[in-house]
């Protein structure tokens, strides 16, 4: 068993504020079924932008549930500006600490809060989008997110970053990139992150490839990004279009259907009607 504090176990056994606020002023959704944890946060404001009510729905382990419960308790009564300053450390401290390997649960809480505030301010209702370069393709974690977590928590090792964000915790291919990112954030300006090797592209029919790229950018990518995913064109051989799913889509089984139904259909519609889409890893 994990070494959970009594406070973690209390919030797990008796979670506060479960559910959804009616007519919420802010909604934040992060995580997914495929990743193993997800959190939906809703809150209500009074006329002075003070959070009067906050509720959560969480799919996840005991510490994910406890972190979500703690988050709602912390932000109730805060103004939006005050809430925006809450860090994952605040959530972990409220619970008397979390096991190192479970710190990502507190980070999930902060991300949901940031997104709910963003949702209130801009009216955007999309789920987490992958803003910036994706570093960990298995869990869909971007450079921007990693930089913030590294800074907020003064992380110094790749293992810590994995504990806090899950990044690097599956295939492990991005661990060098994470190491480079840590070096950069810690202030060693000379150390640039190792560039990720661009996918090898054999250009057979330049024009066709260009058109496919354009259609993917315009018609397909926005759809996938709504679910925190992305797509990359790897190669074109005759009528075969080879693509790789990235981000949230990379390990998602629903994405298999997305590929056939949406991508192929769109490409046939806008490029040529004989195209066959294939996924490569």
């Amino acid at each position, binding site marked *: 068993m994990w070494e959970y504090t009594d406070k973690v176990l209390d919030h797990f056994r008796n979670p506060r504020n479960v559910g959804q606020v009616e007519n919420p002023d802010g909604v934040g959704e992060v995580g997914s079924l495929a990743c193993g*944890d997800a959190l939906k946060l809703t809150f209500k404001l009074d006329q002075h932008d003070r959070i009067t009510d906050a509720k959560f*729905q969480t799919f996840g382990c005991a510490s994910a549930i406890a972190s979500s419960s703690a988050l709602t308790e912390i932000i109730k009564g805060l103004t939006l500006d005050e809430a925006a300053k809450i860090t994952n450390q605040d959530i972990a401290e409220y619970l008397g600490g979390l096991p190192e390997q479970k710190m990502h649960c507190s980070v999930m809480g902060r991300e949901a809060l940031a997104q709910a505030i963003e949702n209130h301010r801009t009216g955007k209702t999309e789920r987490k989008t992958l803003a910036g370069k994706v570093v960990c393709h298995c869990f869909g974690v971007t450079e921007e997110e990693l930089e913030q977590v590294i800074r907020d928590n003064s992380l110094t090792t790749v293992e810590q970053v994995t504990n806090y964000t899950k990044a690097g915790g599956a295939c492990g291919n991005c661990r060098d990139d994470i190491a480079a990112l840590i070096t950069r954030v810690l202030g060693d300006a000379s150390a640039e992150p190792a560039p990720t090797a661009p996918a090898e592209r054999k250009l057979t029919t330049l024009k066709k490839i260009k058109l496919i790229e354009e259609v993917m950018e315009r018609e397909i990518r926005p759809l996938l990004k709504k679910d925190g995913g992305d797509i990359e064109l790897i190669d074109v051989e005759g009528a075969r279009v080879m693509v790789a799913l990235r981000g949230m889509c990379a390990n998602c089984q629903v994405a298999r259907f997305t590929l056939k139904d949406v991508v192929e259909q769109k490409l046939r519609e806008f490029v040529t009607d004989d195209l066959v889409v294939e996924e490569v890893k």
Partner: protein
Amino acid sequence: MNQTIYLDNNATTRPAPEVIEVMQPFLHELWGNPSSMHDFGGRVRKHVEEARAQVAQLIGADASEILFTSCGTESNNTAIRGAVEAAGDRPHVITTRVEHPAVLEPCRWLKQQGCRLTELEVDHLGRLNPEDLSRQLSTGGRAVVSVMWANNETGVVYPVPQLAEMVKLAGGIMHTDAVQAAGKLPLDVRRVPVDLMTISGHKLHAPKGIGALYIRRGTRLRPLLLGGHQENGRRGGTENVPYIIGLGRACALAAQHMRAGTARMATLRDRLQAGILASCPDTQVNGDETRRLPNTLNISFHYVEGEAILYHLSDLGICASSGSACAAGSLEPSHVIRAMGVPFTAVHGSIRFSLSRYTTEAEIDYVLEHLPGIIQKLRAMSPFARPAG
């Protein structure tokens, strides 16, 4: 709630009181070294050999074919690394994707040492296709094959008798990790041509810290532990006498309870499964139900996470385990569940209940009384669950 309802017997089992009892004299008065020349040690040696015969009898082997080890992991390492090193010119190592890490890790280490390694795939019910092994065996070269008799997570039973025949025909070496099968299924090496078979004490009501490896007479094996002539030079180190005596007794008890005990376990397991399926919607049984250990139920609750279920069960004194990422202390769900391609709505909510011959009907009914409430509570807070009703 002070009672413990122990349904995690594929992790470890309660040491049988009869086993603990026969071990006592070897901790108190009979503490001699079985290798000694004096009678004080010689008397201990006699008991060790009796225990060896008891272990042999459970699987139809000759006592001389039983090697005592410290655990199942040591038996697996000894078998696989020992057979590969004895074979010389880097044989083809063949195993499956659903093996216990105590098999997978040594196989992957051998790959780093230059051996060709094949990990056979399983289907969505966790089944192997014997044709796949046949194809691999025909690729040439001497093969060392390791396929578990039964899977620890799903309980799926593999066709080891058939596979062993194929390996024998191809002139390869066949090892089976029978840690989960021993004591639950009849095993007979006179009828199944395996060369090596792993047994672990604490999975069949002996204490932790003792295992055995069956080595068919004539099988060449390089010892893992050098440093003594014990166990016919196959494993250096003074014998762990009290635990060897315990393992012998545990094997004798297992043989004695084989028929009635396993039938009872299967009845109770089926009662648990039927009860859960009837009371919890959106659940699925993982693994082939038609070829499964009598004591194991691996079941997924969609839209909820396994560790959260385990903690609620634990609050009620119920012990089970989960293949979920969080429960495993990693970020990815169990390799067995992933190899089977269990739908992503269900991988993180898989729970394993594993019974023993001590499990009672009242315990099963207690689980059935409380589990549906736990699942409902967790689904009520899950952003993915369908509204109840």
